[in-house]
């Protein structure tokens, strides 16, 4: 136990709080063309990711569900990042995000605000929270 206080201070920052308390792109997407759900059965956190594809572009994306600060903020920032991107670009960002939080790979600036979650790599118990929405996104896009 006992990472230095700075790990949590880095992680639980203003930006995470903002996305947790007022998540972006939250709610139902009526014209969704693809939907996928994710659930963490060990804690009950759940998320549903809805996308509207135009050709191979993510024209719109929303999510709903319930979860902790890390899973909610991750989902919120994810929707902001991938909206308007090509499917292949979104999948590449997903790979980069997961490399950062699962393997502790050096952060890629392309991840934007999601860099705030890099401290998750030092909290193994919380990795599944951070990746929950991303797994759902990948499933929706495949």
């Amino acid at each position, binding site marked *: 136990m*006992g990472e230095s206080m700075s790990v949590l201070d880095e992680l639980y920052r203003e930006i995470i709080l903002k996305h947790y308390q007022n998540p972006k792109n939250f709610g139902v997407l009526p014209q969704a063309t693809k939907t996928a759900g994710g659930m963490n059965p060990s804690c009950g*956190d759940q998320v549903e990711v809805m996308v509207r594809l135009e050709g191979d572009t993510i024209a719109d994306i929303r999510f709903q569900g319930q979860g902790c600060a*890390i899973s909610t903020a991750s989902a919120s920032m994810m929707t902001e990042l991938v909206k308007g991107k090509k499917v292949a670009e979104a999948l590449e960002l997903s790979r980069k995000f997961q490399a950062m939080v699962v393997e502790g790979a050096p952060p890629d600036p392309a991840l934007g605000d999601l860099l705030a979650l890099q401290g998750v790599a030092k909290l193994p*118990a919380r990795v599944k*929270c951070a990746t929950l929405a991303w797994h759902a996104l990948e499933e929706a896009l495949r």
Partner: protein
Amino acid sequence: MDFTTLREDFPLIAGRPDLVYLDSAATSQKPKRVLEALDRYYKELNANVHRGAYRLSVAATEAYEEARRRMARFLNAEEREIIFVRNTTEALNLVAYAWGLRNLKEGDEILVTEMEHHAGLVPWHLVAGLKGARIKAIPLTEEGRLDLSALDTLLTERVKVVSVVHMSNVLGTINPVAEIARRAKEVGALVVVDGAQSAPHLPVDVKALGADFFALSGHKMLGPTGAGVLFGRYEVLEGMMPFLGGGEMIREVHVDRSTYAPPPQRFEAGTPPIAEAIALGEAASYLMEIGMERVYAHDRALLEYALKRLAEVPDLKVYGPKGEDRGGVIPFTLGRLHPHDLATFLHQEGIAVRAGHHCAQPLHRKLGLAATARASFYLYNTFEEVDRFVEALLRIHTRYRAWL
């Protein structure tokens, strides 16, 4: 008994003064004696049981059967009523499959409660689905107790099994099992008790409870993982077919048919967890030497002190009944902070608690919560640790005020 010096018996606890372990409802720490029993078995007794003609096997069998005698004493049962299994989950599956699958019919009912652990629900879902039986639940009151007034309508002749948790792993509620069993017997229903939380923390007398079956996990009562016990009333066991088939559980085998050994061997197919069962017997002896009344009293003293001190933490909400019918388990939330985030903050302070639904989703649905954080006590916990827990919560409340 000095519960403070008793911490020295637990190597992990004694070696980690930085750690406040408040997750014994998930699994307990192990005393040296239990670890030594495991070690001694492999160094001095290792042989298979019930078969060898040589002295080592006889000694291993004797140690294994001695563990059965100790577990019988621990539960006030007969030796032949003690079946070694892996854990509570396996024990409850054994009952559902070996008894339920052969005795339940379409339209029969299984009565459970809204505070069951998933292990007390899912085996019945599986078997009821195959047999067309229905599952009903005794509801909860606002305080988190069972609403026994519902028994008048729920407990009909259609009910063939009443399966209840003795002590809730979330709320700590200790259910009036003896009374429920008495009512169940009136309609001829089988009484199955999930004792995963009660066996480690309360004096248990399966005869006084009126249980037909009582399931426990060794690892929650100072034993190693991999060994648990199913108590079954002998008259019931005698009439049952086996659960798993294989070696050790037979009388005579032909290529196309077999007959079975009497209980308990009938229900112990294959090589059992010998070392783990022996070490579990050692854990039971350790607890019996202290006295389960005193173990319970220590949990209760910590609980009462903690509930009093937790009232100092603003925005903290504690769930579960207030009264004597409550063991040392505290589910809590802090403001709007998600229990997972809260558990991470507590982890940062060196305090180990669990967060989530604790394998009791129906109960959390009833509470209107997706998750709770949970602190649980055992005999090695101290009042000073309760203070550290409360002070950590106060610091978290100040530091993360914006998150609440």
